[in-house]
């Protein structure tokens, strides 16, 4: 019943888990350096006044500042996660269908009595399962390591921010899958989903750059960028400063993700394989 899910997990878990472990290692590294870093961290705060840094790190991270452990870890980690997950999602979006169509394995798979939507959904579920390691392992390792070094930090806010960002990544994955199904070609899938994901990431940064000059233009640019929503440092900052969780953003992102996935499932069920 879950053969595709099981196969996908068995054969690809390590492939997806390695980049996640790198993120976890980065979080662990942040914990390791914090005790030495804390006394001198104030000196680095002025760096955040640089517009380039502000654009790169985002408003949430700047507001959090670098002088707290939460600020440092979210500032360093989420930007790395964003870049890593863009590559990650592009690879998965391509591998899920387009590459199978390119190589011909899809031809054989679909000659078996499996509903196409089930094939797609089980592969996605396997990816979701493995990528869940990102918020869980990162939080767990950071929390355990921090407690062993007597670092106190708001680990609840950290967990929520990690999960929020993960939800965004899953929505981006749905969009990459949609591209894969529309084009059924690896190169076109990478090109189109790369344009959407990379473009969205760049828009968010350009928005940050132009903000000092025109807040209105920045709002427009960042408003259409998916990376602007459920921003890790912003979520963390909001929770830590009792501004509340951005529920509206979560709903919008889930809606976009579910919609992209539903369109993908319907298209995949109906489309022809030439």
């Amino acid at each position, binding site marked *: 019943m879950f*053969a595709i899910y099981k*196969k996908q997990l068995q*054969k690809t878990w390590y492939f997806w888990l390695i980049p996640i472990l790198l993120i976890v290692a980065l979080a662990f590294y942040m914990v390791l350096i914090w005790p030495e870093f804390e006394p001198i961290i104030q000196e680095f705060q002025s760096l955040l006044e640089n517009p380039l840094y502000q654009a790169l790190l985002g408003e949430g991270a700047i507001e959090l500042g670098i002088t707290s452990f939460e600020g440092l870890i979210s500032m360093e980690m989420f930007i790395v996660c964003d870049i890593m997950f863009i590559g990650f999602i592009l690879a998965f979006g391509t591998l899920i269908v387009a590459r199978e169509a390119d*190589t*011909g*394995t899809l*031809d*054989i798979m*679909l*000659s*078996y*009595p*499996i*509903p196409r939507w089930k094939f797609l959904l089980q592969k996605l579920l396997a990816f979701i399962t493995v990528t869940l390691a990102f918020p869980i392992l990162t939080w767990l390792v950071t929390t355990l390591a921090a407690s062993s070094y007597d670092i106190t930090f708001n680990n609840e806010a950290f967990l929520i921010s990690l999960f929020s960002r993960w939800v965004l990544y899953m929505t981006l994955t749905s969009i990459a899958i949609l591209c894969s199904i529309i084009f059924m070609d690896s190169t076109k899938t990478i090109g189109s989903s790369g344009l959407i994901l990379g473009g969205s990431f760049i828009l968010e940064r350009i928005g940050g750059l132009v903000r000092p000059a025109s807040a209105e233009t920045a709002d427009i640019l960042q408003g259409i960028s998916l990376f602007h929503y459920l921003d890790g440092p912003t979520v963390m900052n909001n929770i830590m400063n009792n501004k509340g969780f951005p529920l509206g953003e979560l709903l919008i992102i889930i809606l976009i993700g579910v919609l992209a996935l539903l369109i993908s499932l319907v298209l995949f069920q109906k489309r*022809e*394989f*030439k």
Partner: protein
Amino acid sequence: MASNAVVDSDVLVVRNLTKIYGRDLQIGSRKFGRSIIAVNDANFSVKKGEIFGFLGPNGAGKTTTIRAILGYLTIESGTIKINGLDYQQDGLEIRKNIGYIPGDVTLYGNFTGEELINYFNEFRPTDQAFLKKLRNIFKVDLTLKVKSLSSGNRQQVAIICALASNPDLLILDEPSSGLDPLMASRFHKLLLEMRDNGKTIFLSSHDLSEVQSICSRVGIIRKGKIIVVEAVNKLRNKSLQIMNIEFTESNAPSMNEIKTIPNVIQVEKQDGSIQIKVKEDINDLLNLVTSRRVRRMTLEDSSLEDIFLEFYKDEMDLEKEK
């Protein structure tokens, strides 16, 4: 041409199948798109317990027809029924009992043969007794990862996977390509055995000798149109026969005399003998021959290859002109 009547024993019935790729798009005098009719009003049926050969050169529409049968393509018009079920509405039910080997086999490279068999078993349960037989026939090492196998061995793994459930209908697209002659012969023997056990086999192949040796009927497709569906034997009977005659030198008829005989298509002198290609009725030719003194005479049916080339004669002539 094939009869359009559907018989109870017909497992696969294709009626008026038309598949067009692309669309004609013209804005003003500029053309931006062009449609290609890949399959044009194709009609044929495959009976239970027969091996049906599907012939045609590259680009004739063979693979498009197969992909339409498998439900991979949406068709412009026509119907495709397998065991009375509609290929699109009942696709899942149909696929429970189909074994398919595509023309260009690609399997998951990081699986071993065993893992692949177990994996596909989840979707179409394996017939263990038949699998044991397949293991005996094909000597490929199923413990090795597919990516480490040669193309011939990969083909064997694909055959084992497709046949492991002992399906009632096999759709095979160039199944023996890559197999060595010994394996190909074993595979042909297996297909004949499966046929004898009531299995139906739809075989698309370039290998005319393969089709001739195992298929009971063939369909020939040309530029998307099915030009003939006929039993192999009947096709050979209807087609050219080649007569090689060596007359005693004194009374040999002239070449022109032979050419005037009804049904004689071609006359050629060959090392002291005359080769005559004659179509269908050979009695007039025999009358002439028996009226002369003959030293030696042979009569042979044309091979499926000759028949096939005959159907494609116009195209080959055109190519020569180019």
